[in-house]
């Protein structure tokens, strides 16, 4: 029995799971301490509210409705995290998911509101725009040796300002927000296929949710079961070795970034085409969604299937933050918790290393003990 337990702890998947749970725990503890410092009397209630999110409502149908809201926001987050992890497998840190998300929002909303296109055209437009943006970073890296992180950061801001300018043409004249989607062009709203009925008539639950999960599974298959995924990972481990083995490492890098870009901008389209939120053309900073995608990717142990769980969790506590008692706390407390979780994710590698070392040491000790026991036994005989 004991032997099995050690081997279980040595399993990479189990280690990732443990590490992620530890990150979440630390994040929640820090959040709880902050709540205690601000106002001790309400801290217990506030932290349970954040964890419970939609469960704070007592009636099942209201719960379902708000679960639907959380799911509608989970879909874009999941795609952003897939974008980050896909690039990370090829050794590239796609901090540009944020900008690709922005360009996806811009392209889908422009096609929907200005050109009156149906939803699938808007979705494809967003995917192409994101792929192009991602490919620019990839090309700059492969052919001009420009660091991907740097070019992505520049492109994040370039796309933010361009999208703000572009969408001003379809803006409501009295507010900074773009025109409401459902009344301006109903054909651009993603179809629900009856999913809204499952969530008590929440019209924001669309095909986006199942589509995002299907894409996560496709990404897993591509990475684990195809030649392309193998080549991407090989390029990530060692660019030069991959080249030596006859892989087209430059083409692989560009393609990775293009796919990563397409994923993030598709996430934006799947979100903005539900009509859940309108784009604010006076936005002064890049939306957090892409950066939260980084959090979800790392919290999910850089596995597409883990990402499904981790993005739901992160969205769950972010939405939960909205329910805390506003006379004592503010909703940003959940941003604080999720940013602590990302920060702690940086220590995951060290955690795994320390754990393996600890396992080695305890295995060694056990072996020693057994050896001495045998010796003793031998002496008695």
């Amino acid at each position, binding site marked *: 029995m004991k032997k099995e337990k050690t081997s279980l702890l040595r399993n990479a998947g189990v280690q990732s799971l443990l590490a992620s749970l530890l990150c979440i725990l630390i994040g929640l503890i820090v959040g709880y301490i*902050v709540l205690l410092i*601000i*106002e001790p009397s309400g801290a217990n209630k506030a932290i349970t509210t954040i964890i419970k999110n939609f469960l704070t409502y007592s009636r099942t149908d209201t719960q379902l409705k708000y679960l639907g809201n959380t799911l509608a926001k989970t879909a874009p987050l999941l795609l952003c995290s897939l974008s980050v992890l896909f690039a990370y497998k090829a050794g590239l*840190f796609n*901090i540009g998911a944020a900008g690709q998300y922005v360009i996806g929002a811009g392209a889908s909303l422009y096609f929907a509101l200005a050109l009156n296109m149906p939803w699938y055209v808007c979705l494809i437009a967003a995917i192409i725009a994101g792929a192009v943006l991602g490919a620019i970073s990839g090309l*700059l890296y492969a052919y*001009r*040796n*420009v*660091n991907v*992180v*740097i*070019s992505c*950061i*520049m*492109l*994040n*801001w*370039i796309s933010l*300002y*361009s999208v*703000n*300018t572009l969408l*001003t043409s379809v803006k409501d004249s009295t507010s900074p927000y773009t025109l409401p989607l459902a009344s301006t062009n109903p054909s651009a709203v993603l179809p629900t296929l009856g999913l809204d009925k499952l969530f008590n008539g929440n019209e924001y639950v669309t095909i986006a949710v199942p589509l995002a999960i299907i894409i996560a599974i496709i990404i897993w298959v591509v990475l684990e079961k195809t030649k392309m995924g193998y080549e991407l990972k090989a390029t990530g481990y060692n660019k030069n070795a991959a080249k030596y083995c006859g892989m087209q490492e430059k083409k692989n890098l560009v393609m990775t970034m293009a796919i990563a870009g397409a994923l993030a901008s598709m996430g934006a389209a799947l979100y903005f085409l539900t009509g859940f939120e309108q784009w604010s053309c006076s936005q*002064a*900073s*890049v939306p*957090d969604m892409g*950066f*939260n995608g*980084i*959090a979800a990717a*790392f919290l999910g142990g850089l596995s597409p299937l883990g990402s499904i769980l981790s993005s739901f969790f992160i969205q769950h506590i972010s939405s939960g933050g909205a329910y805390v008692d*506003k*006379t*004592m*706390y*503010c909703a*940003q*407390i959940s*941003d*604080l918790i*999720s*940013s*602590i979780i*990302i*920060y702690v*994710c*940086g*220590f995951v*590698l*060290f955690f795994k290393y320390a754990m393996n070392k600890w396992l080695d040491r305890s295995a060694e000790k056990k072996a020693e003990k057994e050896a001495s026991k045998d010796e003793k036994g031998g002496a008695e005989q």
Partner: protein
Amino acid sequence: MILLLQYTLIFASVLMLVALGGCFSEHSGIVNIGLEGIMVMGALGGALVMKFLPNLSAPLMILLVVICSMALGTVYSLLLAVAAINFQADQTLVGTAMNLLGTAAATVFVKAMNTAESVDNVSSIIQYVNQKKALVVYIGKFEFNWFMLIALVLLILSYFILYKTQFGLRLMACGEHPQAADSVGINVYKMRYAGVLISGMLGGLGGIVYITAGVSEWKFENGVAGFGFLALAVMIFGQWKPHNIALAALLFGMLRALSNVYTAFDFLAALNLPGNLYNMLPYIICLVVLAFTSKNSRAPKAEGIPYDKGQR
């Protein structure tokens, strides 16, 4: 015209301070993406001094604001230093987390403070209308900000430290080839700590300069609207050298200033370009320059790679 000059100089001071911070960190071998978060924290430190000690004399006020924003920035940068140097964490990941954390923590803090003062106040705004007057001197119509002078002094000091002192040269060695530096008895870990903490100090100061430039209250929910990233662009455009960084900061600061005041110029208003274009230009310029210079980049060679003593 005077307004343009004034905004250019103050924005250039911000960018220069933060970019110099980034420059110290990168020369020691740590990529500091978290400058944005550090700026927010520094801004918070300075704003708190102005809020709670409103009646200080001008020199004392400036001194305290500078010290406090630097201190908070430095303490905050410890998060990066510990994770990246002792625990070999991914520097981009930690930096990103710090950016998100900086804004979130500052917002939570300021909102909690405001709500504690009066229950109805749920904003994340700190005001410093009167206190700000201590920071500026009017020369004719030109609003001279003492921070401009401080930025200039720190620029000269940074140049001197990096190129003319033993410390600076050792610091740069750690970013180029840490193993070699270690072999001649330089403590790489200590040097990297120094680099990151200096970047926290300068970044924090840059934060307070930014939120007092032009406005007299700050909504911390907005963070610093990408100035940390713009400073990163300045640093790269300046090829990691203090004197070039100063020139790059002037150029990018001017573009930023233009986006605020371009309508006052007839020929620019006649072009009828969207104001966002001026905001975008620094990043585009930086990207183009990178595309042509990165083959033989001046970036520190070992930046972003955790240093492990046992590795060869």
